[in-house]
């Protein structure tokens, strides 16, 4: 369990990016942190592996205060995939790139090979095994960056804007991956603007605005409150919005739900 208690964070230049953030991330949780750009989402997730230490308040990872452990120790449990793959990739080959953290964490050569085989397959990167990561396309680079973190199977996987600039197909793959993680009861925290994607993948939602948590709860609860979303500069999924406009008494989330409702109405009418 990761617990943030009343966390404030002030950057060295005096800008306060987090204000009294309290949040509990339980094992097996799927949590989407949403909010406009500049809301403090990246700042928040950098607290989860101790890259940033709270200016006030406390962050604990499985009971360990992040002030009392190194980033490397915490990262073994909390794997963060940052937004920009260009800021991470450096190795000669994709294989080496994925091996880098595994070496840092002291995996044996046989474990390493096994993990690399596994993630290359998982992320559909097998044919690039011996290519330079720098020669890949944007979407592929993003997958390599993600693979290099998933490879050590961190207990908590944290992703900063994983869907940004990804096409439908890649998003679908990501969704599949999440389903697999869910089966393994792993914990995923995802920063995103993409309300539809968060709802589809069944994430809970924490809304962040100006460094404060505005609301948190199931996607169904949070994303069906247009007022709240407006405050966080997000728009509700189109389907939700449409059915609210049509005066549906309860929010409609999936195409299947909508279909059922419409067929019902049509049948009755």
């Amino acid at each position: 369990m990761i617990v943030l208690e009343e966390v404030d964070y002030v950057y060295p230049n005096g800008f306060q990016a987090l204000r009294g953030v309290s949040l509990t991330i339980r094992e097996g949780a799927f949590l989407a942190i949403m909010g406009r750009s500049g809301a403090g989402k990246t700042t928040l997730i950098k607290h989860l592996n101790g890259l940033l230490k709270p200016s006030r308040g406390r962050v604990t990872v499985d009971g360990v205060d992040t002030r009392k452990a190194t980033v490397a120790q915490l990262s073994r449990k909390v794997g963060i995939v940052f937004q920009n793959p260009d800021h991470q990739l450096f190795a000669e080959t994709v294989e080496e790139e994925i091996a880098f953290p595994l070496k840092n964490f002291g995996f044996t050569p046989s474990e390493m090979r096994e993990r690399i085989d596994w993630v290359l397959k998982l992320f559909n990167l097998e044919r690039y095994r011996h290519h330079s990561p720098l020669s890949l396309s944007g979407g592929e680079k993003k997958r390599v960056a993600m693979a290099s973190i998933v490879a050590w199977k961190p207990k908590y996987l944290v992703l900063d804007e994983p869907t940004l600039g990804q096409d439908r197909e890649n998003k679908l793959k990501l969704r599949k991956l999440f389903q697999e993680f869910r089966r393994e009861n792993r914990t995923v925290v995802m920063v995103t603007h993409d309300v539809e994607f968060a709802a589809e993948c069944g994430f809970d939602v924490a809304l962040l605005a100006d460094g404060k948590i505005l609301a948190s709860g199931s996607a169904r609860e949070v994303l069906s409150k247009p007022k709240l979303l407006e405050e966080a500069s997000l728009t509700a999924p189109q389907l939700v919005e449409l059915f609210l406009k049509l005066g549906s008494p309860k929010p409609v989330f999936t195409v299947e739900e909508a279909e059922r409702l419409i067929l019902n109405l049509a049948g009755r009418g």
Partner: protein
Amino acid sequence: MMACKGFIFKKGETSLHRLDPRVKFLISLSFVVCSLLYEELLVLAILALAMVPLALKGGVFREWLSALKGLSFLALLIFAINLAFIFFGSGKPWDFPVAMALRFIVVVSAFSLFFLVTSPDEFGLALQQSRIPFDVVFALTMAFRFVPVLALEVQSIADAQRSKGLELDSGNFLMRVKRRIPLLIPLIVSSVKRSLEIAEAMEARGYGSGRPRTSMYKLNFKRVDLAVTLLTLTLLTLTVLLRLYLPTPAFKPF
């Protein structure tokens, strides 16, 4: 990292900020010239100390100190090398290594002071109006302007690699250098990538169209600027003359 902060323009309204950039450059250059003329500990110490009131005046004392702190490692290195030379019989006096380290500090902090109180735009204008070809000026100001961007980028790269278990702050010197490779390569790659993108975007907006360029602002040389220039030149001339005509009080142990 910390040293970067000592070379990035800090907004301010002090009299130092308001000086013409060319005058500020002259002041910094004078410090450098003077420090190169003398090898004596006393003179170099005076030069270093003379920068303190300037840094205070410009409201950039803390930043200036962080430039010094960040580069103290190099100063120590210079000290060590000179000490080694003495050891192997360079015949220099025993305070020479300290003086050389101090000279380095004076040169570095003169530049730090200049960049701290001169905005990139001012710097560009100054260069441009001194009839240096525009392409050269442009390359220089771009390099200068992107220092803060690069500093942020290094931070973000370090964050990403540390999150993959990279330890930056432990191990011996060689190990520390080796561990910076995962920082260096992404930095170079993304800088090159960005510069290519910027070049394309600039050409797409008419850069190098061949027409004479116009500019929006002009620098104006105020009376204060003239006064400060004269004062600086006088002091500089005096220092040079002193060096030429006075025997230097060399430190003689016997």
